[in-house]
């Protein structure tokens, strides 16, 4: 497993700052991009790949002449899966490194920790992660998928196939709680019943009692919204206890590649909605995986966040080149035109002016008994419509708030 390139990478991370200036680029000319991602701690398994994806995109962009002729320079910090580190480093990249844009965050807790700081210093941050949705904030651009893309597709499909009794097992923080609310609403809107809901504190790794609660409730399938390495122990323990229920998720496989880490068949019949995973069988996805592996041969898995981070780099490049400046107001004026699109690893995606979220083609990934992946269905071009329909319009005003189905934007 250990190799020269991994050690070299580690040394660079240890130095905390990775400068990627192109050969002859003048330092003051460079466009500086802050990268705050977890390269150690509980989330590292899912997020180290994001830094590599951003590095890959930066190297490609620099090799092709930079952004509007200016080279890209990355300022990378390891946020250690720790929310206070996000706040510390967000202040540092915005105040002392003076970056033009920041790519930051895995967990929703970390995003909500740094978001007020981005607002305070009028920064611009890309959140390249699927999440529970609802962030209506002009200083944020979100390239990850949201519930209307991942749950409004997945849950009705699962109910059709596996019945209307649903059990949710979710991580006990804002992501899990709000996602569970979405699942509950969609299940009820489709005439189903929530036969159980349990919220698991982050860091819990023993699921004996939860497994029994699920067996007692006899659901048709289990929605697993478990986050972090410790909670992933559920799958092994449920499989060992022979629970044998289909599972549905917005976070597994596409993020933490559990199907690669656990012994088959513990993830058998896991269904996940994701906009990209390395098994996706389109020419664009294959080309992306190929060039990623050529640059980072030891990468354990290329997940949806890697693709979203890579796409975000090119969306930013396009906006800056069209606006002719890195000024945030000018970039948002380009975004407001509604035609900032990119044809990348997950197909064609476009930014929605009202919510500054991204449209996605959503793949339904099914884990088979041998942990290979099949794709029973695909939903093309799902727009991130909920925020706009609920009343968020960032082209008109900026509430800098997060909304949920039970606390939607105030009616005007």
């Amino acid at each position, binding site marked *: 497993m250990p190799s020269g390139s991994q050690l070299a990478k580690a040394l660079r991370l240890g130095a905390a700052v990775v400068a990627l200036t192109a050969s002859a680029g003048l330092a003051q000319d460079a466009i500086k991009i802050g990268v705050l991602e977890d390269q150690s701690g509980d989330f590292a398994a899912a997020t180290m790949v994001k830094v590599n994806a951003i590095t890959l995109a930066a190297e490609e962009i620099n090799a092709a002449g930079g952004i509007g002729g200016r080279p890209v320079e990355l300022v990378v910090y390891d946020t250690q899966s720790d929310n206070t580190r996000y706040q510390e480093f967000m202040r540092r990249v915005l105040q002392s490194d003076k970056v033009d844009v920041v790519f930051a965050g895995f967990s929703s807790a970390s995003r909500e920790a740094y978001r007020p700081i981005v607002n305070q210093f009028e920064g611009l941050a890309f959140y390249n992660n699927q999440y529970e949705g609802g962030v209506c904030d002009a200083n944020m651009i979100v390239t990850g998928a949201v519930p209307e893309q991942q749950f409004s597709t997945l849950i009705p499909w699962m109910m059709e196939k596996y019945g209307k009794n649903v059990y949710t097992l979710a991580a006990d923080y804002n992501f899990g709680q709000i996602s569970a609310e979405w699942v509950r609403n969609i299940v009820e809107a489709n005439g189903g019943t929530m036969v159980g809901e349990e919220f698991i504190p982050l860091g819990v*790794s023993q699921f004996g009692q939860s497994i029994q*609660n699920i067996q007692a409730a006899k659901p048709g399938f289990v929605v697993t919204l478990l986050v972090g390495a410790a909670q992933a122990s559920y799958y092994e323990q449920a499989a*060992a206890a022979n629970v044998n229920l289909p599972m549905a998720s917005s976070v597994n496989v596409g993020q933490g590649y559990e199907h690669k880490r*656990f012994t088959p068949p513990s993830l058998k019949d896991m269904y996940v909605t994701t906009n990209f995973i390395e098994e996706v069988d389109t020419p664009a996805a294959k080309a992306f995986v190929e060039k990623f592996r050529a640059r980072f041969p030891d990468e354990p898995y290329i997940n949806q966040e890697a693709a979203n981070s890579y796409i975000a780099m090119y969306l930013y490049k396009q906006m800056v080149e069209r606006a002719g400046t890195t000024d945030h107001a000018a970039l948002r004026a380009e975004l407001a035109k509604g035609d900032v699109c990119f044809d990348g690893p997950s197909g064609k995606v476009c930014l929605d002016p009202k919510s500054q979220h991204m449209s996605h083609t959503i793949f339904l990934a099914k884990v088979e008994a041998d942990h290979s992946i099949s794709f029973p269905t695909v939903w093309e071009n799902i727009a991130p419509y909920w925020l706009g329909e609920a009343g968020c319009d960032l082209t008109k005003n900026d509430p800098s708030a997060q909304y949920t189905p039970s606390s939607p934007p105030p009616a005007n």
Partner: protein
Amino acid sequence: MLPTLFSFLYQFGDAFAFLVIASMGLAIIFGMMGVINLAHGEFIMCGAYTTVSLAQLGLPLPLAIAGGAVAAGLIGMLIEVTVIRHLYNRPLDSIVATWGLSMIATQGVLIVLGSTMQGVGTPLGSFTVGGFSYSTYRLVLMGIAVLLLAGLYLLFYHTRAGVIARATIQLPRMARAMGVDTGRVYTLTFGLGAALAGLAGGLYAPTMTLVPTMGATFMVESFVTVVIGGGDIFLGAAPAAAILAVIRSGMTAWQGQLFGQIGLLITVIIVIRVLPGGLSGWILGGRK
């Protein structure tokens, strides 16, 4: 009725086994020797990683688990000789030193072996009682927890080595006067504690995610058990594990995992307020 009773006993046994197996190494290093070992979780992680590596090389799982315990024990002895030896009776310094070791181990494994490791899968399959299915391996873990307690009791109370170890830790000068090589006894006892932590890692490795930070998930339970138990493994940690297992499995069955954790922590607050010497301090104090 019977399936419900079995279910409760199984959940109790499962929680009990986890508390006992996770905390035995710490009970020796922290409970007996008085070293606040914040690297306990990393000895567990070392045992788990060694076990899985050996199992993937084709060794049968029981041997691989034993290998994990031996590896953690050897590393423990090395650390005792190089670091811990100089920190006896300096509890605050030992906190900082072991915390540093724990960070070095976690980050070192992340850098050298990467962010995750593929597991080996839980052996032995499952069985069914009254509509609920259970993992057989977890029954084995319960048995091992009981055997572990019995084995340590025999070792410390019915062998010469055990008497010497207890004498060395309680009255090191007297032990030295009687011709005991106390330095060696400290090293071996610390090594035994580390090996038991490694054994915990090996035993739970097939049931968990293998990541460099996995040791952290054992830490709260281990410290809570040892703090409630007090200095003596058998009069302290064993009944503490039993009581905590009842509270944890009961609260989790009633209100979910969060309340299980709350119950655990409230219990420790009450016990250290009422019984500062832990359960064993109370039992032994009552005898005087």
